[in-house]
């Protein structure tokens, strides 16, 4: 599903984020990306939907070499990859319903299908009753659930979550994790960068540790492995 071969990333300001990443992620896997701050976790996740382009190396997503993807085709890659951000990235002027519907309008789904599908995912993340609220009227946990709803509404093959629980209290984090686990159980590949030892050690999945821009550990059903 996702392959990276010798991927390097040096930012314009000279900071080296990744230096030689090789990884193969299969369809339906749930992968934690762990490691200290500044190790390159975020860069790693952002490479997959081309928010960041590698300086060197190749990346295949769904058997497409995304380095060679034309700028015009990038939106179509992003429609196959649902992304959940630590800071939610919701559109502030749109209601919860409209935020989720936006992702479907982008792919020009028929309005009747949009209505039923949006309400379906909002139900799945437990926010059906907040459909008409605006993002700033919601708690952090609720906003994150909206952003998950938006990420999955188009049935993406891959969901990427960059520290989705980073700003949330433990109880709320559990709720978020249950939703992500559920999505994964339905066959979606989930890649999640996280700092949470509790989560990694409780919901057992593949763990990839990145340090200093390289993968230092890759275990099926691994532990967090760092002291907090």
């Amino acid at each position, binding site marked *: 599903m996702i392959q990276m071969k010798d991927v390097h990333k040096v930012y314009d300001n000279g900071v080296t984020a990744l230096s030689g990443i090789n990884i193969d992620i299969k369809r339906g896997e749930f992968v934690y990306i762990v490691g200290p701050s500044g190790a390159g976790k975020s860069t790693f996740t952002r490479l997959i939907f081309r928010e960041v382009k590698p300086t060197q190396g190749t990346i295949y997503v769904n058997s497409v070499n995304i380095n060679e993807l034309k700028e015009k085709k990038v939106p179509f890659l992003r429609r196959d990859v649902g992304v959940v951000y630590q800071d939610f990235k919701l559109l502030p002027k749109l209601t919860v319903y409209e935020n989720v519907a936006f992702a479907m309008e*982008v792919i020009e789904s028929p309005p009747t299908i949009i209505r039923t599908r949006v309400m379906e995912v909002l139900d799945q993340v437990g926010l059906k009753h907040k459909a008409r609220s605006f993002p700033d009227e919601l708690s952090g946990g609720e906003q994150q659930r909206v952003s998950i709803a938006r990420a999955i509404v188009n049935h993406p093959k891959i969901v990427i979550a960059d520290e989705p629980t980073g700003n949330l209290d433990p109880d709320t984090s559990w709720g978020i994790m249950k939703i992500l686990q559920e999505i994964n159980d339905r066959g979606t590949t989930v890649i999640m960068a996280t700092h949470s030892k509790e989560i990694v050690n409780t919901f057992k999945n593949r763990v990839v540790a990145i340090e200093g821009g390289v993968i230092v550990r890759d275990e099926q059903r691994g532990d967090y492995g760092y002291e907090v």
Partner: protein
Amino acid sequence: MNNEVITAMKFRTLLRHLREGVKSIGRNGWMTVASIGAVTTTLILVAVFLAVMLNLNQMADNIENDVQIDVMIEPTAGQEDIQNLGKAIQQIAGVESAVFSSKDDELNKLIESMGEDGEAWEMFEQDNPLNHVYIVKTNDPKDTVTVAKKLEGMENVQKVVYGQGVVERLFEFNKYARTVGLVLIIGLIFTAIFLISNTIKITIMARSKEIGIMKLVGATNGFIRWPFLVEGLLLGVLGSIIPILVVFTGYYYLENVVSKQIRYKFVEFLPYTPFAFQLSLIILAIGAVIGVWGSVMSVRKYLKV
């Protein structure tokens, strides 16, 4: 898939963009008010200036069109000579009309134009010292001097009068006035474009983050651009409402109140219909075009995420 389905989807998406654009006007509250305010102020300036310039231009035209050439006919010329002269004048290139005016007509005109003092001239009715005259008008007032030169050389012509010296200076002055006016109008329109598109740019800059998010969700550039285009169009159109009202009421007042108090013949304002409507249309067009242009240009900057 057949083409019909694709067209149907496009149309639906277009409706969606229209809806989103209108919605955005409402939800951006103060930003919308600020943009419309800037558009309104600028367009009022443009409207007033255009009205003034176009009317001055019209007055210059009026003055120029009043220029006529009086061809004084030799008193010795007979009936036939006069008719031949008339035909010959018509033949000259650039002559629009040559109207014969007998010396009695000329005297009457003179008496009339003098008002009460004219009575003194009535004694000449018995022994009229004036000439028969051909009143010549040219197609283009600027040809006056050249036509007059040709008339002077003709047979049975005693004298040609067209306001020598004054007419040349008048045309010269009008030429400069028109050029200056045109330059000022162009300058003002550029200023308007700059001011309006700048305001719109600021409202969109405030939303550059939103544009980034839309891109990350997989929206194509076109998809993002359209609602902004609609919004820019609406800002321009809404901003031109007050200027248009100003044009209609202001010009109505000018035409019906002010113009009645001015007694110079050449001060004649362009008629309310259609001028007020034409001016409004120009204002609306400037507002709409700049609105669309300003928003599209500013969005383009943030689409490169």
